[in-house]
């Protein structure tokens, strides 16, 4: 959707060298859950962040709003999260609260547990409006009904007084979306918004998100492990592995020309309806523990192309074609890819 270069000019949200570490108990060391992550989010676009479980997607999203539980976690100095020119990491608490839910909102993975069981959904949707816009109770209730209508819940006038346990999973996720969008944020962080839902509901929720994004003109950071979701809804994609960004590209470009061996592996692991049936490809091995990332390239132990340079020198993010970067030595030595096949 956007053609700006990833230098950061015109970006709504700039993340640079984000490092979020967790001090583990029993002295097992520091878990480097997110390590030097950088990306930009432009107005109106959908940026997908994909990766396996444990690669740092959720920690990245929580770090943006500084929702990482501290003591165990901390964001290292030198990290930068810039929203409209202000570094969120340096913002005093009251100003940060004024951003949360108002300009940057978030929806969570589990609609079952992300709603407070003791309040009606109307109360919860109205909450952000009461906090940020100081609406009266009556006005907030009217706004809640309006939002329920917007997210396509039938009978909003009645549903507004229902408790979360009276709603189905898909409805609860719609309520979560209504809660997040009540102040018309500029950025919506959707952390695996459909993972806990069944497939038909998934499609409805994603369609709803897409429609609301156009109507409200917001940028969406779509975090998922589902490449199908990314293919259908993201303009650009950031692939994460082991706490790092390993590849960034426009969605079409990424699917047509994956550069990083990890992205290649992920794409090969997607079952295809148009290919002859064969055993599904799986990337060998597992994501290593965040307390002990491999030296050199973190994907090396699972990489089919790895050579001795990968063991000693951690690869940098190299730009192949414009707008397409990958953290792999193959970008500088493409001949190796053919050689090892």
């Amino acid at each position, binding site marked *: 959707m956007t053609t700006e270069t990833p230098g950061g000019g015109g970006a709504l949200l700039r993340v640079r060298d984000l490092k979020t570490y967790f001090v583990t108990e029993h002295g097992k060391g520091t878990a480097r859950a997110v390590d030097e992550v950088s990306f930009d989010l432009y107005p109106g676009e959908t940026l997908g962040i994909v990766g396996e479980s444990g690669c740092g997607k959720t920690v990245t999203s*929580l770090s943006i*709003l500084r*929702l990482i*539980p501290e*003591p165990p976690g901390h964001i290292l100095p030198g990290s930068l999260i810039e929203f409209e020119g202000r570094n969120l990491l340096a913002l005093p608490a*009251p100003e940060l*609260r*004024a*951003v*949360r*839910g*108002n300009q940057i*909102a*978030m929806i*969570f993975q*589990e609609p079952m*547990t*992300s*709603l*407070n*069981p*003791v*309040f009606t959904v109307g109360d919860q949707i109205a*909450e*952000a409006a009461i*906090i*940020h816009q100081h609406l009266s109770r009556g006005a907030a209730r009217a706004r809640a009904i309006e939002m329920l209508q917007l997210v396509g819940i039938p009978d909003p006038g009645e549903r507004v007084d229902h408790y979360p*346990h009276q709603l189905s999973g898909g409805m609860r996720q719609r309520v*979560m979306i209504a*809660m*997040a969008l009540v102040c018309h944020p500029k950025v919506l962080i959707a952390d695996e918004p459909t993972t806990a839902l069944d497939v038909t509901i998934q499609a409805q929720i994603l369609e709803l998100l897409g429609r609301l994004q156009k109507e409200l003109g917001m940028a969406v950071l779509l975090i998922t492990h589902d490449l199908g979701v990314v293919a259908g809804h993201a303009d650009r994609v950031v692939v994460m592995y082991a706490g790092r960004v390993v590849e960034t590209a426009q969605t079409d470009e990424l699917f047509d020309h994956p550069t990083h061996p990890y992205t290649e592996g992920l794409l090969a692991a997607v079952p295809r309806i148009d290919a002859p049936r064969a055993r599904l490809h799986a990337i060998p091995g597992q994501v290593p523990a965040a307390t002990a990332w491999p030296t050199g390239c973190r994907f090396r132990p699972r990489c089919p192309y790895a050579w001795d340079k990968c063991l000693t020198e951690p690869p940098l993010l190299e730009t192949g074609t414009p707008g397409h970067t990958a953290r792999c030595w193959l970008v500088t030595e493409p001949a190796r890819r053919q050689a090892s096949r």
Partner: protein
Amino acid sequence: MTLGSWLALFVALIGAAEIVRALRQRGLKHERWRRFFRNRTTSWGLGILVFLVIVAIAAPLVAPLDPIKQHDPVHLKNLPPSWTFILGTDVFSRDVWSRVVYGARVSLGIGALGALVAVSLGSLVGAVAGYYGRRVDAVLMRGVDVGLALPRIFILLMAVALWDGLPFVTLALAIGLTSWFGTSRLVRAEVLSLQQRDFVVAARALGAGDGRVIFRHVLPNAAAPIIVSAALGVGNVLLLEASLSFLGIGVAPPRPSWGNMIADGASSLYTAPWTTLFPGLAISLVVMSLNAVADGLRDALDPREEGGAA
């Protein structure tokens, strides 16, 4: 006993039974309150409490005589129960029944007020300690450890020694201020587990401040243990008041409380057992009823009992 006070007593009894019956009827519609009334003991406990509260409120109607008036200290002292003095008279020739009735005001009042103070303070300290964690938690909880380690009665003795003849409200406050330690630990534990829940993180993501998160999202979800501890707390405070009054430092005579009635009658325990028996029975009855109601509340509010749709 006059006809009027018999009538008032009768009305109180019927009223209590009717209130419990009506509550039960309405409660049958809700899963939660069905669980509350599932146990027969709970209904009885609730009925007795409602009855005693009505009696306490309507004390001037239910009590036939002035609870403080000494009718005839020479001829009418330590009389056994009769039609005139239904529960007998005490060593100062006062009507025991009237004193028990007026004592309900004092004893239940102190119990309720003291428990309210204790539970509010305990919830607040527990929530703050659990929510902020780390140093705040360490400091507050060490304070609570100290509070639990000191024998409460000595702290109260000290407070009373400083004041000499505590007014009713001050006494209730003093008891409340020394009774919140257990509750604060309970609430802290609950808050520790609640604040990891997704909806608390979601509330913070909406821009809710600490106060809003604690009072709107965390504490209401810890309501079950707080309510149960409040019900049990009333009984504990009432017992504490009785012990203090028995020691002569609680409610100042001649105002009747169940505790100081027992203290007054203790010297004539052999010759006039009715002077101590009836206030003692009243205390036991209230504490037992409160325990039964607390049990019922525990059943009703336990989220583990919450069946799928409930």
